[in-house]
Each structure stands twice: as structure tokens, then as C-alpha cells.
């Protein structure tokens, strides 16, 4: 009988944590969509709302998706800086 053991290191736990935070953010966004859209339409500083949300989601969800593929075994090839060939 084969048993799959998911071994989690600190990096893996961080990714799962980020995934949960990302999920909570999305649930909050869609459960409060009307209020958020109304807020974003306010005159003056309302335009900050979608921009702040976009930045927040990009940090959390971006870090999660990076870690996610890493956990799936999709890693970049270690390579030096691209060659510059003019000189």
C-alpha cells in the first residue's frame, strides 16, 4: 500500500497560509461587493479603493501563486544573469 506523505517545510506552510489569506480576501470582496463598488464610485478619494485592493491582492495572491507552483515542483532553472553581448 502506498502512502502519500505531504511533507511541509516552513516555505510550504507559508504558502498554505498565504493561500488561506488570499481566499479570505476574495470571499470578503465578493460578499461585500456592493458596498465596495459604491465606495469606489465616491467622488474625491474613491478611486483609491480599487487601486488599494489591486495592490493588496497582488501581494498576497502573487506570493501564494509563486509558492503554489514551487510546491507543485515547478521551479525555475538556476541560471546566471542573461548574457549581455555588446561589449
Amino acid at each position, binding site marked *: 500500500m502506498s502512502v502519500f506523505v505531504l511533507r511541509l517545510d516552513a516555505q510550504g506552510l507559508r504558502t498554505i497560509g498565504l493561500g488561506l489569506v488570499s481566499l479570505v480576501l476574495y470571499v470578503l470582496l465578493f460578499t461585500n461587493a456592493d458596498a465596495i463598488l459604491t465606495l469606489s464610485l465616491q467622488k474625491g478619494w474613491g*478611486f483609491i479603493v480599487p487601486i488599494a485592493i489591486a495592490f493588496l491582492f*497582488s501581494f498576497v495572491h502573487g506570493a501564494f501563486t509563486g509558492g503554489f507552483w514551487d510546491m507543485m515542483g515547478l521551479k525555475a532553472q538556476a541560471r546566471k544573469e542573461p548574457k549581455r*553581448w*555588446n561589449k
Partner: protein
Amino acid sequence: MTNFIPLDATGMVALFLVGFVGGLVSGFIGSGGAFVLTPAMMTMGVPAIVAVASNMCHKFPKALVGSYKRAKYGQVDVKLGLVMGVSAEAGVLVGAHVQELIKVAFGDVGSNLYVSFVFVVTLAIVGSIVLRDAIRSYRAGAAVEEKAGKLAKFVQSIHIPGTMVYFKSIDAKVSVLITLPLGFATGMLAATIAVGGFIGVPSMMYVLGAPSLMASATELVIAFVMGLGGTIKFAMSGYVDIRLAMIILAGSLFGIQVGAIGTTYVKPYMIKMVMGIIMILVLFSRLLVIPVYMAQLDMIAPIAAGTAAALKSGSFWIMVGALVIGAGIILRALWTGMREAAVPA
């Protein structure tokens, strides 16, 4: 909130998936996906301006994450990206203004015809240069390294006192008087067809002489600057539907990571190959609808409604096909690269 439509599950899943594929292509060639997302949202009933604004609002965080990832691989020239980005921003403003003028003068159909015409002309010229170069590099094999072309060498030899800036991707000083119009054109194109990278990346490669890996990575910085500026402008007028933007972002951040990882496994000509193929396919997509708009403007004989609908639908699906084929080539190259890397030499 009449601009913001109710969302259904099918639409959300579709946007997530298009976002993923678009992100995958962007992570690899520096841009892409936007040309399918805007029409896809419009098909769902989203007003055109909200579709463009929400697309823009997913673009800048996506570009931020993508450029951060590729900077970790040493592929980003932040200075070049910012210098080009600022002038691109000016290009976006002028481009958007030209769009408005055309819309006022010739209506929605005139505006559509103008956009399709710009698509066809730009992609025919730039797309064929990129694809020809990619095929030449492919035939020459991996042994031949990328080299700065004659034009890039000439540009690097121009010395205008007081305007010279050193760029690490080129490893040379170039006058900002040369980068300014390139950035401006990138922004103009972005405001017109939503994909500034179709000028931005080739201009960095062929005019400035940046390697394709660095040009496509640096384009993400330009896209970030342009996207942020554009989003502020649209958000101030209340056109950004943050729900749509964040659904697309959810998918595209998964995709952009894979695209960025892909660049570390492939030979540089693959970036040109994917870009060239997508450009030429999109060119044909836009070519199909030009007669429809021309007929609506009475420039040619009327076209039967059924034929017009078929042409429009064919055009949309060729665009989707362009993205899917691009994504397929990237995934295949990534798969092959990873397998080769796993086998000890």
C-alpha cells in the same frame, strides 16, 4: 451602478481561465491576453469602457508580480522600464485622446475600424520582423547567440551630450531622446489596441539592442507604469469594476508565474517565436472584421448580417486561438526544458 453587471458563475470561470492563459503568455513575452479579455468581457455584457478599465486594473498588479518574479532571475532592467514607462504614460494619454476624437467624429464603428486598422498595420510590420528573426535564429540553431543588429549598433553609437543614460540590459549608454519616442509609441499602441508590448518589446530588442529575455521582462515594468496610470484615470471616472479585475487577476497570477519560470528553460528565440506567431494570428483576426466595419460606414457594399456575424465570431475565436497556441508552445517548451534539465549531461 448601472455600469456594473451582475456576475454569473460561468462568466467568472471563463474570465479566470482567460486570465490564466493571458498571464501565462504575459509572463513569457511581457504582454498579451488583454486583446482577448476586453472582447470577452464585452460578450458578457460589460460596457466597453468598463471592460477596458477593469482589464487595465488587472494588468498593473499582474505586471508587478511578473516583473518581480523575472527580476529575481536577473532579467529586468528597471531603469529602462521606468524611463520607457514614463514616456509610455504620455503615449497612453495622447492615444486615448485620439480614440475619443475618432469616436466623436466617426462613431463607434469608425473607432472600431481605426483600432482594427492599427492592429493590422502594426502587426503586419512588426510581427513579420519578429517572426522572420525567430525563424532565422531557429534555423541557425542554439550555437548562434543573440547579437545586437545593425540598427541597434547605430543607435548605440549616437552620442547626444546631456541625454546619455547607461542601461544595464544593453550594457551601453543610449540617448533618452531615442527611448522617449519608443516609449511613447508603446503607450499609444497600448491605448489603441491594449497591447503596447507589440511595439515595446521589439523596439527594445531591435532598436536599442536588448536581449529578448531582458526586453520581454522589462516590458512588464513598462506595463506596470502604464497600467497604474491608466487605472487611476479610469478609476477617477468610476469605470473600474474591481470584481471583474480581481477575478482575472486570480487566474493571471497563476499563469504569470508559469510563464516567468518558462523563460528560464527556453532558448531566447522562443520568446520571439511565440510573440511573432501570436502577432500574425491576431493580425488575421482583425483583418476578418475590417470589411464588416467598412460596410457599416458605407465605404464598401453592404455585407449580409449572417456573414458579418460569422466574420466577427471567426475573428474572436482566432484571437482566442492565438492565445491558446502561444500558451501551448510555452508549456511544451517548459516541459521539454524541465525534462532536459532533469537529465544529467
